């Protein structure tokens, strides 16, 4: 029976050929070429000089790059807590029997994910604007003029301020993924738990969370991958400034490659981003697996 609908191997290969070719051309080839160029001094002309590991030595001692890496990790932590955490709470609320118009909540929750990063950046720039911004207007209207600031020019606050729009934008995205995972849980489980007297929080922690564990893992991986390559929102809002206070790795790579036309070192930074992202994603997955195994034991 299974064989009857299984297509021939050649058919499968034929179907696979196009997407695989596209993948190789758009992902694999640039990755390999970037890796090759990372061993050259290439200042944006036809002349490339092989310099061995010089770029990597520079990268290792490049304080701006490591500062940017720190900012990426900050974003990852902030977004795992902010995006996935808040999304989980919202999902629990939407799934509650007391909530009406669930479809509307889902739609409006997801809506920010569909807006382009440039628009989001501009909208939040207006919120933070020190003269015309909503935030300072609110502070003034409650009589706290002393708290008004040029928000995006505060080196200590700027990473938090640029994370907020990112978190806000993608809550809905994770909400949808979790909602679909939860909908596959048998409702009888919840009903029997309710009869046993479990309240909403207990149901969320002891029933929902373990049952959608794998989905949560996917969400966390997506969240890490997304934030390790963060660029657009921050570029629109601060261009990495003031100074390098909100510089992230991808932006630094862009700046070195295109503003400083140092393509060789820029390629080296891209390879660095790739390796660090793999380490962080791999490390976090190992960590989660380790933690969850402890609980089961």
């Amino acid at each position, binding site marked *: 029976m299974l064989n009857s609908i299984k297509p021939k191997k050649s058919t499968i290969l034929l179907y696979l050929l196009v997407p695989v070719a596209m993948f190789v051309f758009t992902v694999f080839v640039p990755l390999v070429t970037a890796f090759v160029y990372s061993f050259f001094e290439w200042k944006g002309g036809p002349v490339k000089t092989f310099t061995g590991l010089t770029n990597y030595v520079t990268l290792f001692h490049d304080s701006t790059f490591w500062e940017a890496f720190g900012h990426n990790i900050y974003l990852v932590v902030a977004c795992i807590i902010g995006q996935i955490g808040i999304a989980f709470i919202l999902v629990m609320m939407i799934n509650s029997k007391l909530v009406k118009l669930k479809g509307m909540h889902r739609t409006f929750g997801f809506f920010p994910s569909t807006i382009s990063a440039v628009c989001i950046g501009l909208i939040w720039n207006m919120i933070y604007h020190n*003269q015309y911004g909503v935030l300072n207007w609110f502070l003034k209207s409650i009589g706290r003029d002393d708290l008004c600031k040029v928000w995006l020019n505060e080196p200590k606050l700027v990473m938090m301020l640029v994370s907020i729009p990112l978190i806000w934008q993608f809550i809905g995205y994770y909400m949808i993924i979790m909602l679909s995972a939860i909908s596959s849980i048998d409702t009888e489980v919840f009903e029997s738990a309710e009869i046993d007297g479990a309240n909403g929080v207990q149901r969320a922690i002891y029933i929902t969370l373990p049952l959608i564990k794998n989905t949560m893992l996917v969400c966390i991986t997506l969240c890490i991958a997304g934030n390790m390559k963060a660029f657009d929102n921050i570029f629109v809002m601060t261009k990495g400034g003031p100074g390098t206070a909100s510089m992230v790795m991808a932006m630094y790579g862009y700046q070195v490659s295109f503003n400083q036309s140092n393509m060789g070192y820029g390629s080296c930074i891209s390879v660095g981003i790739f390796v660090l992202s793999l380490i962080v994603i791999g490390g976090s997955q190992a960590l989660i697996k380790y933690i969850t195994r402890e609980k089961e034991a």
Partner: protein
Amino acid sequence: MKKKLLSVLLCSVLTASLLAGCGNSAAEAPADEPQTEAPAEEAGGADESEEPAAPAEASGDLAFAGELEIMHYSTSEESEGNGGSDGFRTVLAQWDEAHPDITLTQNVLANAEYKTQIATLAAANDLPDVFLLQGMNSIDWASQGLVYDLTADIESSPYAADYNQAYFAPFTVDGKIYGYPALTGGTCTVVIYDKAMWKEAGFDAFPSTWEDVEKAAEYFNGQGIIPVAFGNGGKWQANSDFLSTLGNRYTGPDWFMSLVAKGGAAFTDEEFVKALAETQRLFTETEIFNEDFNAVTNEDAREYYISGDAAAFIGGNWDESYIWAALQADNEEKFNNMGFAVLPQPADATQAPNSQNIGLGYAVAINAKVAEDPDKLAAAIDLAEYITGPAFASYVAENYALGGLTKVADVDLSGFDQITQDFYNWSYVDTETCEIYDSYITNAVWDVLNTDLQTLMNGDITPEEVAANAQAAYEANY
């Protein structure tokens, strides 16, 4: 049956997604490519009635017949209101029309995209026949043999006598010239102020020293008005629109030319560090500027001036033309009160108090590969000479009161409003000129300096550290 239906469904979804995938990539490809404009459309866009009489050279006979590519950034959107772009498009169309045997293919991109694209093409050794070379790329590209050496052609150009020789400096490497400076010369640092507001503060004209500006700032801040608006959110503004001129007041022009020629000057030289220290003092210790100068761009900051929230604004000629147009349309009184001034002189600076940085940032350059075909090279040189020659200079002088590479004698300004005349005189007649830093050296240095400048203006780094970082980048990249 159900499974069959499912498989059919899956297959169709797969095919559809594949098709959609192909469709997307096909649709995206042309969008990524630069907008290629048909020469016919180009010619149609030019306003014949406004054209000055084209000199005889425009219709000169050239042996070359075939395709000649040019890449530039004077888009049709840009040319509305921007004299340089409009003039450039107009003379290009004139040349194209005068040479029916040559198919002039134009690749037109907006400036930001142009810079990225031309850098990528240079990296691939695939530059177009004729293109615009940015001053700070001259040394890199010339040393790699990408651009054709035009020294002899410029000397024998029919317009050689009228060229403003100073404009060639950013495109000269080891005594060889690699381009015809293009578009219009405009200042990068002008103080635009509201004469009426400063009169109320007790100043008949914009103060010539920062001490006086500080005194005026007390008055303006008391009124809830920003004394001087400035925007450095893009990071380049503090360099192009401020430090380039302020630095000259401390170091004088020789220091910078020595830096360009690797003649021994360094960013860590005392006079330049003093300029950085003064920049830091002005932005951190005085109340002269809007407090969000590091968070807003020049586009935002000039709106403070236009709306009357600020009494003055510091920016470049592109800001002047925007403010001019905005006020002319909406606020006649404020328009008539527009005044222009040079950057005030710091108390401990000793050089050129009346200087402002002006120049031509781009030059028409020719791909070195074109030289393989002497006829094509002759055509490319003819094109370059024409679009930077008197036809262009007369057009922008008569229509916009702007100047280009070629000097135009006796520009009749009487047809222009007073503000345009004032700005013309301020730009080309009444002030001394100095160099625009980032027309020279390499962006690998300026990018490091610009990033640090933003931190410096917040007071989070010392002038000495900024100078040392810039010097390190200079030594590593230049």
